[in-house]
Structure formats: structure tokens, C-alpha cells
């Protein structure tokens, strides 16, 4: 190639590169030039596999609930139950019959008016045994759902339930006629509709032209699945994302030091660790072994090393946070004490040389760290803890559902619930907990608490349950935790529920 042609090629290369950089500079200028409008780019490490709210598989899908769907009631940012499609509700004297009055003028995104018949058919869909709805515990009390005119629905319960409006928050009103295409064109009543969806990869939402309320501030929301939290954090700092949801605590340290980012946490965290053991078989069949394990957990070290300080130590094997109004403060505290742990293990017939297995999953690296801390503690009293890490399916298959036997295993897990004790205590109802703990006393106290609107009666029965859990230690609950999200400082209005569900419907992108 002669000299002149080389110069032309080189010049062309420089020009093209400059154009590229210029285009790039324009394209990454940010989603909005003024307050409001714009595109919100949201990342999660868990993918969204499908869009049917009744078949929700992973917690990340619940982020779509307030965007695409409405239910009768919803949780507001203060952690209280608020009207959604139902503007008001009332119950019979014994809280066994509930009447919900529907909002008028609501349409599905296809323009069809929503009536009480749609609410009834949606409930029947959720209640159908063929529908694998995960959260059917709260709905199992429903006896019947009937329309009461065009704008009112009556729900008859099998047992009294004073908190029933809380229980129906997961039920979303779906256009049942469009059920077969729900994953390609979901028809709901929320402020957004789906523009495009690639399962576990990308999802684009745009405004619903038939939405009954005020349009959302952002024009478009793009969800992308990030390979891991670090990649998501990188995308945040590079400006590709404005929100990264459900971020592990290990990424929060960098976010706290970054003035262009802020952390969004639930106002009233409702997540807690539940380290489960088989209470019906093996060494942990003996309550003293479970109490010994509680004393052997260095919760402070777990909090600082595994959870980077994001949470609170909890030493009473109590799922309720100390800030919960129904928290019973007069419980035995299982503060880290290896001497007591060793003595109790010995009373349970577990001596030096015994081996337990920490059965964890690589999906949550903090559980492996927690296991290592427990391993070190137990080693000090001559007990060996083997740590086995698996993928999620293998991990769950060992102990799930309730009724499986797994002697000698300690299985890290966690629960995310709203602040109402109903949800936390449901986990300990007979046949629910994978720890195989069944207590008729808990069942009776639960039924009484749920059926009463009297705060004293509720408090007395929740206290009773907490005392049983504190003494029997069916699960170890060393920490109250929160799974926070990281948001660009240019975005406001993003919040999290107690159970870590991210809310984007009120997001505003500032100029």
C-alpha cells in the first residue's frame, strides 16, 4: 500500500473513532434532561422468568406487581395497608365476612372495564388447586368469593381473621380472558404495560394509556438481568443503570462512599435469618442441642463479617424484630457463650468429635461466610462442622418441602415478611416449617390472635408463641437483616417494603 493510501486509511480511522466517541458521549448523557420523564434502567441479578403474578417464582418478580397489576389492597411506604382497587372494606362482627368496595372507572390496559366479576374470577384462579400459587397460606382461610353488585365483592372465611386485608395483597386482578397470553401481552390495571419481554434477560415497560390513576413520572422502565452484583454495581457506577435491586451487603460499602449513589432500605425491615435443623430426627431432635447451637452462634461476627454490618443481632430465636410493637422483651437471650453451648451439647449426648453439616448454596455467599464463623466457634468445643455448598436446586431438594428428614444438617435460610406478626408466625404453623416443628399450642394461639381485633388478645397470643419459639428454638434466628437496593442520586421516589419488595411506580428522574 503506498504512503498516500496509508494516510487516507489512518485519517478515516481517526474520524470514525472520534465519531464513535462523540455518539457515545451523547448516548450516555443520562435518561432525562429535565425533572420527570425519561427511562429508568433497573438491574437485578435474578432474572424475571415469567409475568403471571399468580405464578411468581422469585422475589424479583414482585417488583412488577405495582407496575403492571393492582389488587384489592396494597402496602404503602409506611408499612401500612392501603386501598388499591378497593377504596374501602368492612367486616362482620366476628371478622369472618369481608366486603370490599371497588374503585369505579377502572379499566384493564386493553380498555375493558373492570368489574366485581373480574375480581371474583381472579380470586378463584388463585384459589384453584391447579394454580401453583406460592403464597397460599394467607388465602387458605377463604371459603368463598362472590360479587355483590358490579362494584363490591364479598369474601367469606372459614375462620375469623382480623388481618384479612393484609392477606389479599398478593392477589392481583387479572384479565382472565387473556390468561393464555399473559407472558407475551399481560393485561392488568397497573400504570405500565409490557412493550417487550425476553425471559430472564430483559423486560421493557411503557405507560398504560388506560391507567385509572395519575401517569407515572418515568416514561419507560427497562429491566435487565445482571450476571452478578459486582457487574450490576459496575453498571451503576458507569451510568448504564440507575437502580440495582436487592444488592448483597458486600456491595453496600462502596455505594455508601459514592456520592452519586444512595441506598434504599425498608423503613421497617421484616427479614430475618432462619437456620433450620430437623427437630424430628438426628442430634437436633433434642431441644438442648438446638439451644446449645444458639449459644454457639457468634451473631456479632456473622453480622460484621458476613453481612457487613447491615442488620441487627437477634439472640432470642424470635422472628419479630425488637422494634415490632408485638415483640416480647422478656425472653431468654442466647448470647454467644461456648461454655454453655458445650454443656448443653453434652446434656444432649453430643460430645467432642461429633460432626454436623452446614448445607448451603453458592447463590448466597454470605451464608458460606456465616458457616465458616460457626465452624470456627464449634471447633473450639471440639465439634466439627462440614461445609457443603450446592446450587439452589440441590440445596432445596435436601430439606424441602416440610416433612423431609435431614439429621445432622444445619441449613441456612431466611424469611422476608411484612411487619405484621401474622406473616412471620405463619412459618411456624404445623406442617409449614421445614424444621418439622409442629406445636398445637402455637396453632391455637395463632388462630386466636388472627381472629381478634383486640390488641390485648393479639399481644397475649403473639407473646405466647414467641415464648414457645424462644424455649424450643425450632430455628436459629441470629440476625434481623435487610436486603437493600442502590439507586442513583438522580432518582427519587424509590422505596422498599418490609419484605424487600422494590417499588418503582413513584420513581422520578431528576434533571
Amino acid at each position, binding site marked *: 500500500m503506498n504512503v498516500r493510501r496509508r494516510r487516507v486509511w489512518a485519517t478515516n480511522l481517526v474520524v470514525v473513532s472520534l465519531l464513535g466517541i462523540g455518539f457515545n458521549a451523547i448516548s450516555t448523557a443520562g435518561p432525562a434532561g429535565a425533572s420527570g420523564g425519561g427511562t429508568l434502567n433497573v438491574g437485578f441479578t435474578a432474572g424475571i422468568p415469567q409475568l403471571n403474578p399468580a405464578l411468581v417464582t422469585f422475589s424479583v418478580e414482585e417488583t412488577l406487581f405495582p407496575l403492571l397489576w393492582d389488587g384489592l389492597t396494597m402496602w404503602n411506604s409506611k408499612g401500612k395497608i392501603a386501598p388499591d382497587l378497593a377504596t374501602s372494606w368492612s367486616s362482620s362482627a366476628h371478622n369472618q365476612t369481608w366486603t370490599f368496595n371497588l374503585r369505579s372507572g377502572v379499566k384493564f390496559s386493553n380498555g375493558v372495564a373492570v368489574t366485581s366479576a373480574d375480581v371474583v374470577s381472579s380470586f378463584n384462579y388463585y384459589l384453584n388447586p391447579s394454580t401453583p400459587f406460592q403464597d397460599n397460606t394467607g388465602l387458605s382461610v377463604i371459603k368463598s368469593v362472590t360479587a355483590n353488585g358490579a362494584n363490591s365483592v364479598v369474601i367469606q372465611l372459614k375462620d375469623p381473621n382480623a388481618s384479612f386485608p393484609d392477606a389479599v395483597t398478593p392477589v392481583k386482578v387479572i384479565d382472565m380472558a387473556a390468561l393464555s397470553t399473559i407472558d407475551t401481552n399481560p393485561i392488568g390495571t397497573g400504570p405500565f404495560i409490557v412493550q417487550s419481554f425476553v425471559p430472564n434477560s430483559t423486560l421493557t415497560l411503557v405507560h398504560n394509556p388506560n391507567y385509572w390513576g395519575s401517569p407515572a413520572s418515568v416514561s419507560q422502565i427497562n429491566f435487565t438481568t445482571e450476571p452478578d452484583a459486582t457487574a450490576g454495581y459496575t453498571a451503576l457506577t458507569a451510568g448504564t443503570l440507575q437502580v440495582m435491586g436487592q444488592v448483597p451487603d458486600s456491595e453496600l460499602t462502596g455505594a455508601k462512599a459514592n456520592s452519586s449513589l444512595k441506598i434504599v432500605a425498608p423503613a421497617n425491615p421484616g427479614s430475618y435469618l432462619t437456620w433450620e435443623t430437623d427437630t424430628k430426627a438426628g442430634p437436633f431432635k433434642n431441644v438442648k442441642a438446638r439451644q446449645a447451637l444458639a449459644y454457639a452462634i457468634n451473631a456479632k461476627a456473622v453480622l460484621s463479617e458476613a453481612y457487613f454490618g447491615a442488620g441487627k443481632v437477634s439472640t432470642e430465636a424470635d422472628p419479630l424484630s425488637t422494634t415490632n410493637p408485638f415483640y416480647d422483651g422478656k425472653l431468654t437471650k442466647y448470647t454467644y457463650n461456648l461454655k454453655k453451648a458445650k454443656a448443653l451439647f453434652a446434656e444432649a449426648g453430643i460430645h467432642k468429635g461429633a460432626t454436623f453439616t452446614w448445607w448451603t448454596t453458592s447463590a448466597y455467599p454470605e451464608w458460606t461466610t456465616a458457616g465458616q464463623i460457626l465452624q470456627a466457634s464449634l471447633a473450639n468445643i471440639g465439634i466439627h462442622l462440614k461445609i457443603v455448598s450446592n446450587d439452589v436446586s440441590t440445596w432445596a*431438594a435436601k430439606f424441602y418441602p416440610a416433612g*423431609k428428614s435431614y439429621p445432622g444438617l444445619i441449613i441456612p435460610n431466611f424469611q422476608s415478611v411484612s411487619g405484621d406478626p401474622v406473616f412471620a408466625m*405463619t412459618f411456624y404453623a404445623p406442617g409449614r416449617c421445614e424444621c418439622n416443628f409442629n406445636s398445637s399450642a402455637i396453632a391455637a394461639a395463632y388462630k386466636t390472635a388472627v381472629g381478634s381485633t383486640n390488641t390485648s388478645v393479639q399481644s397475649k397470643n403473639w407473646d405466647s408463641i414467641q415464648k414457645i419459639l424462644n424455649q424450643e428454638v425450632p430455628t436459629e434466628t441470629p440476625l434481623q437483616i435487610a436486603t437493600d437496593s442502590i439507586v442513583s442520586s438522580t432518582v427519587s421516589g424509590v422505596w422498599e417494603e418490609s419484605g424487600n419488595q422494590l417499588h418503582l411506580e413513584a420513581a422520578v428522574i431528576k434533571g
Partner: protein
Amino acid sequence: MTRYLVRRVIVSVVMIIGTSVLIFGALRILPGNPILTRFGANSGVTAADIAKIERQLGFDHPLVVQYWNWIAGVFHGNFGKSYFSQFSVTTLIAQRIPPTLELTVGSILICLLISVPAAILSAVRPGRSFDRVSSMFASFALALPAFVTGIMFLLIFSVHNRLLPAGGYAPLSKGVWPNIRLMILPACTLAIAQMPLVFRFLRGQLVEELSASYVRTAQGKGAPRMRVVVRHALRNALIPGLTMLGLVTGYALGGVVVVEYVFGMGGLGSLAVTAANQRDYAVLQGTVLLISTTFIIVSLVVDLTCQFLDPRLRTQPL
């Protein structure tokens, strides 16, 4: 030639069937299933509920029956449905093919664009500075894992200098430039992993060809050096290089899994990884079968092309 073709096709078909049995069996051996993943330690679901859903999905049938039902569907173009999304496997794969195809083809093109000229320049002046530097770079690139290269690119071009996006994929329908902006880093990452293979192989072949007597004859007759290299030596060196191209394609198909993960591209690789974690049997079986069949077909085409181009190979046993 016909006998060779028939034999190679039969061997390829056997390999595809073997792959299908392998992936089917491997998934069934692993603990867990998609039902357990879906309900993932959620309270309120009993063992009886799980068993009922397993019966509905046919998981209680003998494995041979399950395999036959699946493979019979494949022959009719029905690869099944994702248990989680209810999308057909063909739809899911069709959604994910564009980024994987672009990444594979783009990385191979970049690899060839850089490796072939570099190999030529190295081979014509062996032992000189360019040859030494290129060989050093090839060794370094061979030792460097693709994910390390990708992360370095992200840090330099996305995080610190904000020149290019940190990840994702934009289809060509959204514009050529958005597509290129998002593809350039992943394609270069994968290309760097492949370059050493092509460079070293081609350089070695060229050095051997350049020492052949026909090259000396051509040069003795006054032909310009580069014409001799490109028109004579390179053509002979490229024939075994075609075999290397088949291997590079297979390497690229395997490497896309890592690169797609690093750059958050929703391609076949990430589809397979997610399906494996979730035990989404139909999706993983379909994806692995597609990727392995692609590799087998590419190898077959490369072999047959070599046979066609070089008659000497036709007399050699299979």
C-alpha cells in the same frame, strides 16, 4: 469422496444422539428438579403437592419413556416448554440466538483480521522484533482467561473512562451504532482468547511452507516476495488452517458462556446457565443440543471442505 461423506455424516448423527443422551441423563442425575426450584423453600406446599405436579409433568415416568417423549418431540420440531416461563424452547432460543451469533461471528472475524496478517508478517521475518513481540503477546493472551480480559476492558472503557457501556445488547433493529457499541468489547474479549490459537498455528504452517522448494523456485523466477507468500504459501498453509477454524468456532461457542456472563448479554450461554441452575430441563436440553449440533455440523463442513480443497487428504483413512 462419497464414501467419506456418508461415513462422516453417520458419525456426526451418532455424536448428536450421544450428546442428547448425555445431557438428558446428566440433568436427571443431579438432585432437585424445576418444581423444587420454583417453590424454593416456600412454606405452604406439601410433599403431596410436589408429587402431584411431578405427575402432571410426567416426571414419574421411567427415564427411557421421558427421553423418548422428548427426542420424539425434537424430531417434530417441538423442543418442549420452559417450566418457568411457559415459553416454547424454540421461542426462547430464537430470542437469544442473535447476541450469541453476533458475538461468535464477530469475534472470529476480529480474530482472523488480526491473526492472519500478524502470522504472515511474523512468518516472513521469523526471529525479528515483530515476530518476537507477536509471539509474546500470543502466549500472554493464551494464559489470560477470557473473564479477566473482559473485566479489564470494562474497567478501562466503561467504569473509568465511560467510553463504552458496561454491558447489555442492542439488536440491529435498534440501530447499527448502538449494536456495535455494545458488541465491540465482548467481541474483542472473545477474539483475544482465540487469536493465539490461529496465530501460532498459521505462523507455524507458513514458516514450513516458506521453506518449501516451490517457494524458492518462485522467488528464483523473480516473483515479488509478498506475492509468493500470499498467492502460494498462504493458500497451502490455509488448508490445515481450516481445521483450526473449526476448532476455533467450537472454542468460541464455549467461550460465549463466559463472555455473555461478564457483559450481561442475554445470549444462549446465559440461557443455558440459568436453565442449569433452575433445572429447567427442556430449555437446557434444547440449548445444549443446539450448540453441540452446531459444532458438529461446523466440524463436518470444515472436514469436507478440506477434503475438497486438498485431494491428498481424500486418499487418507477417516
